[in-house]
């Protein structure tokens, strides 16, 4: 049952997961630039972004890449569907911020996990206007996205369309309706009630 150097060197098991189907053809993992071009080709004007390159390693330098995209919200769901045709995308989390007039969500996906040095991170930004912050759910493709979608609803006041479970996750039920902790435009009076600086109170 023991191996001399378990977990080091070439993986002993069959790598059946290294090929993907795209357009009915079997392909291996794409480099980030090619993936980016493919997205550009299929989504045209509706996406914009760039590929960022970073270097890791000490004696053996290796590069890894991240794709940063901005997509129109009408086509966001379609983009996730597009990715899921290649491989079940891994969703790390969705982060978000209050960007003044809009709420900007960033979905952090990655593709080609399971293949050495090939994983590509895709950070997909979607801007939602504050008066109508609605986005489609992706739980129909990735059921695991539910918690992060619920969190965005309670923290940023985003409305996720067709979410299977709209309840709060992390905030308590006592938090007043309409108060969203990650927004910058909260009523200062309400905020004063809710946020206490214990060090200033001598605690």
């Amino acid at each position, binding site marked *: *049952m023991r191996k001399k150097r378990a977990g*080091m060197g*070439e993986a002993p*098991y069959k790598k059946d997961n290294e090929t993907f189907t795209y357009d009915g053809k079997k392909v291996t993992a794409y480099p980030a630039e090619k993936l980016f071009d493919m997205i550009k080709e299929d989504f045209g004007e509706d996406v914009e972004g760039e590929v960022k390159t970073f270097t890791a390693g000490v004696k053996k330098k290796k590069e890894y890449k991240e794709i940063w995209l901005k997509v129109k919200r009408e086509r966001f769901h379609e983009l996730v569907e597009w990715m899921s045709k290649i491989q079940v995308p891994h969703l790390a989390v969705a982060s978000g911020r209050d960007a003044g007039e809009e709420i900007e969500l960033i979905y952090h996906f990655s593709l080609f996990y399971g293949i*050495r*040095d090939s994983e590509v991170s895709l950070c997909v930004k979607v801007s939602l206007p504050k008066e109508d912050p609605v986005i489609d759910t992706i739980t129909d493709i990735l059921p695991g996205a539910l*918690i992060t979608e619920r969190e965005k609803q309670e923290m940023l006041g985003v409305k996720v369309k067709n979410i299977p479970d709209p309840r*709060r996750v*992390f905030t308590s039920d006592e938090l007043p309706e309409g108060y969203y902790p990650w927004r910058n435009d909260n009523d200062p009076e309400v905020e004063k009630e809710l946020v206490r600086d214990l060090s200033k109170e001598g605690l």
Partner: protein
Amino acid sequence: MAEKTFTVPIGPIHTALKEIESFILTVDGERVVNVELDLGYSHRGLEYIVTHRCNPIQAIYIAERICGICSTSHPYAYVQSMEHAAGITPPERAEIIRAIIGELERIHSHILWAGVAAHEIGFDTLLHWTWKIRENVLDVLEAITGNRVNYAMFTIGGVRRDIDEKGSRQIRSSLQFYREVFDTFVATFIEDTTVKMRTRDVGILTREEAEKQVAVGPTARGSGVPKDVRHDKPYSAYADLDIYPIIPDEFTHEETKGDVYDRIVVRIFEVLQSVHILEDLCDLLESTPGPITYQQNLVVVLNQLKRAVGEGIGRHEAPRGEVFHYSMLNKREQPVVWKVRAPTYNNYASWIPMMKGTQIADIPIVIASIDPCLSCADRMTVVDERTGKSRVMTLQEMREMGWRKTKEIKRRVA
């Protein structure tokens, strides 16, 4: 169905786990038919605190205190995200030291988990033995960082303390110790008939479910998903090493089922993997002299961060799975956005398919099998839907149910 089923809330306070959370189980006799999760009892609002009160350097120490067991994983991901946002490159020696601390932590975290798992199925001798052997790596961590937990080694652009020759000698002697005890470790956990009977086919998570529920770390690998950030997208000194994800069938020579047993196998062999990684890292460390931080003066670093505009992500394969941080800087004292994603956040959802169809006596080990990083409940209430009566079942009672099951299996084996 409604006439026969019971609702069993477990939580929010439950000592099987380390933090607070609540499960509402619907049971039919002994079998669990449905699970509902109620989270957020220990939400501390750290992201709010950092984006309103802390500068990026102070935030490292907040990040370190997100988790007490994997207290290096969050700073690891956090400093990566900050360095990407501000365009800082740490020196090579710092990258090696970071990976060394990360791997030492993995050894202690997995052994700690093994002890907890042994306790949940009623092997307290094994609990005490595993925690005894865990002390060795904690001593090494204390010797090289000054602390058993919360090592405070990381800083933006490098590490705070160097590992000298004596330190690397200590690490090597610790690795020798773990290589020697590893045979016993395998014999008591993986080759033991009772452990196998108690955990085989319990809490199954299929590969498809694991991918769709975006599971990470040993939970995903136990189901056969070869996902490991150190292998998929190597960062720091991991790029120098040829690591591959541990998949249970390599060691069990059986089909990967995605049950509790498979997750035990993954974690036990990851201890051995970490020993091998550390050997290589020690060699690298000894042959790579140089500075340990790109800028010694913290005021200069802070000023650079205050002026920086940018965003970045940081990913680290923590003992429980991928830790993910996103940070954004925009010419402000505090970071504008900081999003923390701990591995358990993703693994929550995997509990539901795991628990459906298991027995109540298996719930403690199934909960423990993803190595959750949250506190847990000390009691559970059994509500009889027909009569409306409820009674509180303590964790102790539930554990005893689990222990009785183990004893029964032991008797059958004998």
